């Protein structure tokens, strides 16, 4: 457990969109149980997976996420009864769309993690982090962010620097 931690050349940025009742609480449980997992994930809390708009996933990728996790209550456990059922369909469709656009779905993980599944949270986050770390940075959206239409492209050093640092 407390062995020397391996340093990696690349540490991916992972954004996790989770519901407050199940997965957020599951992640809390991982904490109270002092389970260890990679520190790459940043959690954004929602009341319910039903609230999670596909636009948020897109935005996270645009803003430099190398991987995205969406996690909520198991079917039937939703605090709001049906939010996760609606989310399940929405994301089933959205991932097909992203796949068709050419986004590697290995960068987008969906999971059900209940408030009791601290261990599963660790497993899901670790697996995704390791997988994305092995894949390397996600270039697609980041490259787009820096591209201009030919007519607007001016390569001044100031602008170049500004672009590089714009999230």
């Amino acid at each position, binding site marked *: 457990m407390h062995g020397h931690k391996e340093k990696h050349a690349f540490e991916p940025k992972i954004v996790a969109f989770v519901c407050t009742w199940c997965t957020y609480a599951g992640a809390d449980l991982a904490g109270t149980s002092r389970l260890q997992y990679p520190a790459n994930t940043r959690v954004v809390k929602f009341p319910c997976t039903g609230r999670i708009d596909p636009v948020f996933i897109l935005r996270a990728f645009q803003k430099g996420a190398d991987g995205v996790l969406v996690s909520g209550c198991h079917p039937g456990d939703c605090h709001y009864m049906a939010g996760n059922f609606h989310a399940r369909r929405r994301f089933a469709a959205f991932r097909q769309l992203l796949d068709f656009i050419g986004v590697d779905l290995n960068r987008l993980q969906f999971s059900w993690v209940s408030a009791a599944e601290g261990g599963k949270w660790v497993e899901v986050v670790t697996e995704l982090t390791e997988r994305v770390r092995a894949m390397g940075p996600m270039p697609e959206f980041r490259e787009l962010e820096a591209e201009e239409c*030919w007519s607007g492209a*001016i390569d001044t050093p*100031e602008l170049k620097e*500004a672009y590089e640092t*714009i*999230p």
Partner: protein
Amino acid sequence: MAKSISEQNLRLLIDALVSEGKRVIGPRAAGTMTLYGPLTTGEELSPGELPRRSAKECFFPLCETILAYERDKEGVRVSDVDSCAIPETVLIGARPCDVAAAPVLDAVFSWDYRDEFFLERRKKTTIIGLACTKADDACFCTAVGLAPNDTKGSDLFLSPLKEGGYRCDVITEKGEALLAAHGPLFADAAAAEPLPLAEPTLGKLDLEKIRSWLDLHFEDPLWEEIAERCAGCGACAFLCPACHCFDIVDEGGEKKGVRRKSWDACGFGKFTNHASGHNPRDVQPSRYRNRIMHKFKYYVDKFGERLCTGCGRCIRACPVGIDIAAVLEEIDRKGARD
């Protein structure tokens, strides 16, 4: 003084300009269409078809950054775009209907406010126009007082020859300088026969009559008749060589970002939307009226020129079949009746 240049040498000219570090813009194949774009070799030049988008983006880009900002506790730091970075450019193989729009736009971009982005690009660009030998039923340059071989706006002007190659007329000193710098690629003009020019079918319009009709018909059932079918997209404005409305937006986060200027269109529902929520042009007919008024009256009143070169792009692109040439014909007829 007329010169000529062979097809081969024209492409070599492009190669030479590129190797000098100039940006060369010309028609090039892009998927299913032809578009103006940067040429990396002369081979890429594809002058056969009228490009889908006009050449205005040489001077008035689809989208350009006008400043960048950074903000922290100490305040906001703004870095301007250095217009020196705008490259020396040669626009080659542009049609008369595209080229003629550039000097028309000079007026508005140097009027109460000098738009350095536009003017710097204009200054640094040499335009080699190309006479037009092919017209379709959307073309109407002759109806608005231009011609398939109009040299308005060009620095050099090419006319395709029957035997291949081009006759090259020098129009301005800028053109003269370019020609002088690449003299060996040009020959003296022989008495070769030029290819016949394109012949747009629409008859000549009485633009003065149209203007005076517009003067009196701000309110007219015509606007609704034409434009109630308008879907409110920006295809016409974005493809037009003379439309020049733009929007300015900040993009980025609260800490860092850029301010960008990009094309806007008067057909958009939110184009004149006020911050209060009130929209003085609340329906499509009033927006279309403004489009016609601006092109054939307001701009004429102010700058003496019309914002239409008869390229026909808006006619080809309009997804609901609105035909500006038909509208002008109709107004012309109405003007005659009044």
